[in-house]
């Protein structure tokens, strides 16, 4: 769906085989679907996104490439990535301004995954962010509202991963984490990606890092690397330090932000079998994290769901806090200044 609500964009293929076809159609059915692009992929589906201004569709993956085309059609798709033989697109995201696409590709050298930025309209060639290093792997990246891109990579081609932040055409990226900390927590190697979230304004990155054997913490650092990262909260020795949640826009998010109060709310498990608990912390680390829930009944799995209400300054969560096996709704101030209050009694 385009952001203006006028047009649906979809992909399909004939009989489950053949190329994928991208089409756009007015949601009121006032015109027939218009085929705007074709993509010769054999399996699965082809990721695509519509730009926030509703004007362009970006789609593609793998060796077939990354393309953009107007939602309204009229011109053929434009290939956005470079063309080194044998290279491909590993993953991509729209920049938050919708004017650029950030992607990981081995188009600079086949033995390295590198980060690139290209205008959605293809008006300029892609620009690489950072250097290309053999066997480098981009484990995670997040475009920020500031225009910078935070990304987790292993510049030494080892299992040690750092958080870097850079911009297209802006020189070498800066290191955001303490050099001794590893963005890939040992328990995550091979299965989970790093935890990395940019604050809504794009001025800071929040990330989890291992600070030693079995010890991890949540950190916050200014995106330009102007001051060192600060620890927000310890993540108690656990295989599940922080959880991913579906966020407002349907993307996954590890934390939810209250921009007004400059706080982050997150869930964490204290111990492998402990209940899932809610915490709130200022995003600049200026005060300690506070726990939002009170103690649960014995055997409780803890908090089941939560929503953030920044306008009224509260967090609502579902938990069997009072009676094991009975999940009820509670309300608590985002800053944890008062104890939770039950609002739905089941």
């Amino acid at each position: 769906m385009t952001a203006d609500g006028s047009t649906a964009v979809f992909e399909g293929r004939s009989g489950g085989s053949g190329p994928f076809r991208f089409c756009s159609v007015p949601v009121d059915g006032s015109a027939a679907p218009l085929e705007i692009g074709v993509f010769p992929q054999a399996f699965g589906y082809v990721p695509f996104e519509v730009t926030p201004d509703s004007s362009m569709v970006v789609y593609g993956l793998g060796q077939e490439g990354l393309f953009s085309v107007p939602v309204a059609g009229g011109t053929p798709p434009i290939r956005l990535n470079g063309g080194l033989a044998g290279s491909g697109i590993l993953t991509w995201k729209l920049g938050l301004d919708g004017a650029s696409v950030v992607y990981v590709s081995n188009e600079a050298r086949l033995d390295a995954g590198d980060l690139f930025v290209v205008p959605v309209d293809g008006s300029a060639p892609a620009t690489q962010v950072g250097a290309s290093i053999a066997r480098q792997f981009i484990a995670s990246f997040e475009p920020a509202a500031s225009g910078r891109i935070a990304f987790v990579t292993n510049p030494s081609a080892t299992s040690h991963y750092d958080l870097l932040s850079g911009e297209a055409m802006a020189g070498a990226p800066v290191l955001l984490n303490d050099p001794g900390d590893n963005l890939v927590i040992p328990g995550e190697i091979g299965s989970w990606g790093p935890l990395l979230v940019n604050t809504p304004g794009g001025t800071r990155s929040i990330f989890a890092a291992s600070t030693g054997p079995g010890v991890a913490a949540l950190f916050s650092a200014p995106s330009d690397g102007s001051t060192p990262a600060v620890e927000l909260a310890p993540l108690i020795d656990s295989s599940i330090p922080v959880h991913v949640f579906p966020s407002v826009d349907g993307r996954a998010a590890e934390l939810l932000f209250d921009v007004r109060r400059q706080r982050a709310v997150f869930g964490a498990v204290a111990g492998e079998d402990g209940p899932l608990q809610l915490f709130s912390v200022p995003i600049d680390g200026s005060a300690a994290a506070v726990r939002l829930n009170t103690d649960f009944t014995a055997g409780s799995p803890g908090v089941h769901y939560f929503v953030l209400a920044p306008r009224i300054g509260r967090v609502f969560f579902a938990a069997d806090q009072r009676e094991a096996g009975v999940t009820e709704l509670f309300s608590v101030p985002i800053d944890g200044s008062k104890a939770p209050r039950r609002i739905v009694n089941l």
Partner: protein
Amino acid sequence: MRTRSSACVSLLACIAPLASPAGAQGVALRTGSGTPSQSLREPSTADVYWLALNRDENRIVYLADRVVDGQARLYAVRPSGGQSLELSAPFASGRSGLSDFEISPAGKSVLYLADHEARARYELYSVGIDGGAVVKISRPQLTGSINRGAYTITPDSERVVFLDGQSKLFSAPLAGGSHVDLSRSLRGIPV
């Protein structure tokens, strides 16, 4: 299409009635792409399956089996608490109830997926966030369930765009009215 449009966050797996793909998320282990992927542990006998807040932050909408065990119904309550209002239409015995819901961007209506008409055959319905008549979202023929997540409300909150069980794309007014086949000229191209 989005899997969620409300400011709702899931920490534990939803129980059996909500266990179809792309719906209410379980406890989500982190993955490289950030996609919730699996449940942490077996769910308890949870009564509240999911909650969401409308844009104005003056209504919490939630699913709960507060009347019949295992039958999820839709409720709304003010953030300050008080009496919950049941939004979903009554269910016959043996129905699972709701499988999913989505608050409209304007925050005045709720779209939900439920098996009102036949057990385990899920159709789309809409209702005002303050209650009132439940409206079935029109589609041409009953060819199985509409899948969870295969629908979205337009940003102006006027229409629903959805895939039916035959991978055809439709849109219909959220407040009720005739559907439009958006893929009508694409014979042979399942969406």
